[in-house]
Each structure stands twice: as structure tokens, then as C-alpha cells.
């Protein structure tokens, strides 16, 4: 029994030399163990993995289901299914609670700040990565040094600087701040990326008489596409979900709130009004598009968000 088991295992692994080795020291014990181990561990592993799936998804599911409930149902029966699809919550969240407006504000800010971040970040990173000049290293350290400082340290001076520049509570102001605070990581990441690109193509372009600018746009940027996509996703989610900066620098009119701010304010407001259904509907509206985009591009998103830590 044990011999067949051993043989079976050695065979299944496709490694010939395994056989003599197992025959020498207690063949039975070694032969059987990994199998049983595997079986038990498999069940064990799966139950824990499923448990965490529930942990991760249940709160979100609860919000989506609750979004269809009337306020009375939310209070009386937090677990139950809604009696019917109560679409009025969504209408309330969209119109009265202004979720649509907040989302549009976020989109406007993002369209400026993401473009700016990618453009300026790529430009600076390219020059730092591919050109030798005096102060190159110092500049690199200056940029990535920004990663060491918690944003809270700069918050107070930044607030008053924005006030002095007349950019407080304005969209351009928020866009510029988003760009500036995304630059250190973007440059850190893209510099490393540009350095890995082969220099042969670059040299060939120069020999063919392409200008520096042309080389950058037509040769290097297309080659850096995977890196640009990763960091683009990273910046998109980071800026879309940004809470601290707008909380401090965008406190003028409530109509100008970005989405995360709006949701936080909505919770306070609905707490007074007791209209929890509208809050859940608002959360659902804010949550679902991001989740759908994420599931569609999950490989890229995961790669983009963990890219920084892997470097």
C-alpha cells in the first residue's frame, strides 16, 4: 500500500530521482503525508478563503440591498430583503442629495488633474531617467523626498498659501494641488520605468535626426505605455477617492463638493432627516461604477495599485 503510494507520488511529480530517496527513509510515512495534508488543508483553506469573501463583499452587498428599502424597513429589519424595489431612494439621492452633482464635480477635477499629473510626471521622469546633467540625482531625490512627508505636515501652510494665491475653494486650485501631490510617486515610478526601456531605439531615433521632443512623444511615450497605464490607474483611483485635500481646500459652497466629501456630508444630513434609504442609494451610485470598471480591468487595476509596493 505504502509503496504504491510512494511510487504514485513520485510519478505524479514527474521527478525520477525522488524514488530512491523516498525508499531509503521511512517510505510509508513520507509517501502518504503530503496527500492527506493537501486534502485537509484544502478544506481548511477554502473555508477561510470563503469566510473572507463574505467579510469583504457582505457589507457592500448589504448597502446595495438596503438601497431598495423604505426607511421603515431599514430600521425594523436590517438583514431582510426589501419588500419591493424602492427606486424612489435613487431619485432622492440623485436629485435632492446632489450625488449627481458631486460626481460631475469629481469628474471635472479629475479630467484636469489626471491629465496634468500624467503629462508633467512623464516629462519630468523622462528627463531625470534618460539625460545626464548636473543636479540630476539631487532633483530625483527632491521629488521622491516628497514621499517621506505625511501630507498633514503641509496641510496648514498649504491652506494659507492657497488662500493667498486666491485658489482656495476653486477648481483650478484643487486640480493644481492634486497634480503637485501626485507628482512624487508618479515620478518615482516612471523614472524607474523609463530606465528599464532599451536605449537602442532611442539612439536610433536620434541618429535619424529626431528632435528631443519628437523622440519623447513618438518613441519613448509609446514604449512606456504599460507603465503609464499602471500609474494612470493608480493616480485615477487615488485622486477620485481623495478625501483629505478637498476636505481642507474645497470647503466653500456645498455645491462644489467632490464625491467623497459629498458622501460624508450626506451621511450627516440623512442622519438628521432619517432618510437612510437615500444614503444607501447614494453609496450604491458612487460604488457600482467603480466596481464595474474594476472588475472589467481587474488585472490592470491590481497591477497598477500594487505596482508601487513591488518596486
Amino acid at each position, binding site marked *: 500500500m505504502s509503496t504504491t503510494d510512494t511510487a504514485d507520488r513520485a510519478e505524479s*511529480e514527474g*521527478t525520477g*530521482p525522488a524514488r530512491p*530517496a523516498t525508499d531509503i527513509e521511512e517510505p510509508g510515512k513520507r509517501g502518504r503525508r*503530503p496527500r492527506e495534508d*493537501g*486534502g485537509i488543508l*484544502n478544506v481548511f*483553506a477554502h473555508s477561510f*478563503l470563503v469566510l*473572507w469573501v463574505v467579510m*469583504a463583499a457582505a457589507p*457592500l452587498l*448589504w448597502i446595495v440591498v438596503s438601497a431598495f428599502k423604505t426607511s421603515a424597513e*431599514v*430600521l425594523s429589519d*436590517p*438583514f431582510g430583503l426589501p419588500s419591493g424595489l424602492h427606486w424612489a431612494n435613487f431619485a432622492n439621492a440623485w436629485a435632492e442629495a446632489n450625488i449627481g452633482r458631486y460626481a460631475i464635480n469629481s469628474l471635472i477635477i479629475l479630467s484636469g488633474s489626471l491629465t496634468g499629473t500624467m503629462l508633467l*510626471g512623464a516629462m519630468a521622469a523622462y528627463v*531625470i531617467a534618460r*539625460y545626464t*546633467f548636473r543636479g540630476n540625482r539631487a*532633483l530625483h531625490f527632491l521629488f521622491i523626498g*516628497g514621499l*517621506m*512627508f*505625511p501630507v*498633514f*505636515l*503641509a*496641510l*496648514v*501652510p*498649504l*491652506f494659507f*498659501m492657497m488662500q493667498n494665491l486666491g485658489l482656495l475653494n476653486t477648481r483650478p486650485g484643487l486640480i*493644481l*494641488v492634486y*497634480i*503637485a501631490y501626485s507628482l512624487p510617486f508618479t515620478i518615482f515610478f516612471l523614472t524607474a520605468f523609463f530606465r528599464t526601456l532599451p536605449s537602442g531605439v532611442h539612439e536610433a531615433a536620434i541618429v535619424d535626426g529626431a528632435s528631443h521632443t519628437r523622440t519623447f512623444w513618438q518613441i519613448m511615450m509609446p514604449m512606456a505605455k504599460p507603465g503609464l497605464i499602471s500609474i494612470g490607474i493608480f493616480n485615477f483611483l487615488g485622486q477620485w*477617492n481623495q478625501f*483629505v485635500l478637498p476636505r481642507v481646500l474645497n470647503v466653500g459652497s456645498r455645491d462644489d463638493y467632490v*464625491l*467623497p*466629501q459629498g458622501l*460624508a456630508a450626506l*451621511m450627516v444630513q440623512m442622519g438628521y432627516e432619517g432618510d*437612510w434609504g437615500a*444614503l444607501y442609494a447614494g453609496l450604491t451610485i*458612487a460604488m457600482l461604477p*467603480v*466596481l464595474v470598471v*474594476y*472588475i472589467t480591468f*481587474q488585472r490592470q*487595476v*491590481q497591477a497598477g*495599485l*500594487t505596482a508601487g*509596493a513591488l518596486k
Partner: protein
Amino acid sequence: MHSEVPPAGEGAAGNSATGNAGGAGAPGGAVSVATPPPPGRPGPRAPYRAPTAQLVLTFFLPPNLTPEAVKYDRRYRTLDKYRFISWFLAVPLVFYLLLVAWPFVQAFYYSLTDWSGYGTEFNFIGFGNYTRLWNDSQFWDATRNSLVLLVLAPVITLALGLFFAYMLNAGGRHRKNETVSGVYGSKFYKIVYFFPQVLSVAIIAVIWARAFSPRSGVVNPLLENVGLGGLTQSDWLGKYGLWVTLLVLCWSFVGFYVVLFSASMGSIPKEIYEASLLDGANRSTTFFRITFPLTWDAIKTGWIYMGIQALDAFAIVSIMIPRQGIDVLPTFLYLKAFRDGDAAYATAVGVVLFLLTLTFALIMMRVGRRDRIEF
């Protein structure tokens, strides 16, 4: 106004010198009739030099407006390179210096003053703010809470992340020709685990604030349903704010580390696992002797990153926790700066936060140092 022809060709050594001097002195590069050196002239000759003023001007012009004269100067290539470098760096650098670097520098200075934030008058008071912090019990509470998060959040999150990642990558049953194999559906697990990472932290905070609500939340009924009715609380967020914050923080980052560690474990060569299996290692030995050491680099960076996240926690605490609940350092800073009008004092808190981050990162880098294993 003297127009000059750039010296060209041989035997013009003196000519070249005068040309240069004239170029330097020429007002505003008024030279327009610069002629390129005739090509193909044999023999040695001094290099052609464009007037300096034009060279300077070129630096500020876009490449397609480069004056013809300059293009034939041998220094043009260097000039072109530096023009490109400075043009590309100028805007990012200005933004960065103005909006990031300068506020950081200012913060250190303001923390030594008594500036309220209103008006422009303030006095230099040395370390006054820091002595005030030393005696401020509210500050110590916030610091204690931040430190608890800093110590516990990375340990819990990374342990869970490693556990799940290992299960995903090596928890599967043995298949043919594979020593270690991932569980079935590992891709699905990773997708779901990652959900909290793509959601705004504001959304997460609102969801959990609602879940822990004593009246319409789900945590209390859930505890009752599983027979732990004794554990229900009437004020989760007020009384146990710190632990709820810790839970939410860990909850939202576990998925990130599962994905991160999975990638790192996936890059470990299969031969190493095969070899260890042949030597009779079981799974826990494999984990502690093979997987753990080989993912150590990712764990270390992950630890530092998670520590920084734990020191932040601003959105979670400020949205989820009611006013009478706990403070962490960032929320304490926010209140001092923007509610109490105590700007300088708040920057001192910021400096403390910075020093804490720095100390933590340095300790982690020293403790975590190991021989790097290349594979």
C-alpha cells in the same frame, strides 16, 4: 547698428575673436543676416560660433523658432539638450516646489511661532508649542491611539494577507506535475478581496459607520443571531472607536496585501518548492523556510506602507467616529488648525507626526534588514 557676418573658414582666428566679442556685446541679437559656413571648404578652420545673445535667446524659444545662425554652432547640440531638459522640468518643478516642498519647509518654521492662522502677525516662540503639546492630555490621547494603530494594524493586516496569499498559492490539492498549486478559483478570491481597495475611503467609512449604528446597523443584530447577544453595544463608535477604526483599517487593506504577496509568491521558482518537498518538508515548513524568507522584501515594504496608512486614518476617524469619540493625530491636527484657529500649534502636531513616521520607517528598515536572496 553694425551688422556682422559670422567669421567662417580658415585663417580667421582673429576675425573669430572679434566676431565673438561683437556678438556678446551686440544688443539683443539684432543679427539677422548670419550666414552658415560654406560647406566642404578644405583645411583646418576655427569652429563657427553664433552670437551669444542669440544662443541665450534660443534657450527660451521653442525648437522650431531656433535662429538659423545658431543651428550651425557646434554648441547648439548641448544647448538643445539643456533647453529640452529645462523646458520639460520647469513646470513640474515649479508646481512641486510651490505646493509641496515649500509648505513642508514652512510647516517647520510655523511650528516655532504662535501664529493663529488669522492675520499675518505672529511671534517666534521657540519650542513653546512643543512644551504645550507635552502638557496637553488630548494630544497624548491622540498619540496613544495613533501608536496603537501603528503597532497593531500592520501586524494583523499583513498576517491575514500572508495567510490568505499562501492559501491561494499553495493551498490547493496536488495536481499532476505540480508540487504546489493554487486553490481552485484563486482569481475570483483575489478580485473580491480587492474590492475595498478600489472604493473611496469615505465610502468605506460611511458603510461601517452605518453597520455599527446601534439602531439600524447590522453588527448588533448579527451578534444576537449568533448567540453573542451579551456583546452588543449601544454606542460602538463612541466607546470602542479605536477598535472599530482598527477593524476597518485592516478590513480595507487585507485584499491589497493578498494581491501583493500573491504576486511576490508567484515569482518564487517552482524548483525550490520541489526541492523542499523532496527533502520531506511539509507545508508549514515550506511556508516558514521557503515562502516567508523569499517574500520578505515585499513584507517589509508592505509593513512600512501599512504603518503609514495606520498613522493616517484621517478619513475613517473623521467620518465614522462621533465628536465625543476618539482622536488620532491627523484629526487632532485638523481640529486645532481649522476649528480652534490654532495654526501654529497644529503644525507642531504635524512635525510630531512626521517624526513618528520617520522613526517608524527607519526602525523597520533596520530591523528588517536581511541578506537579499536573488532568484
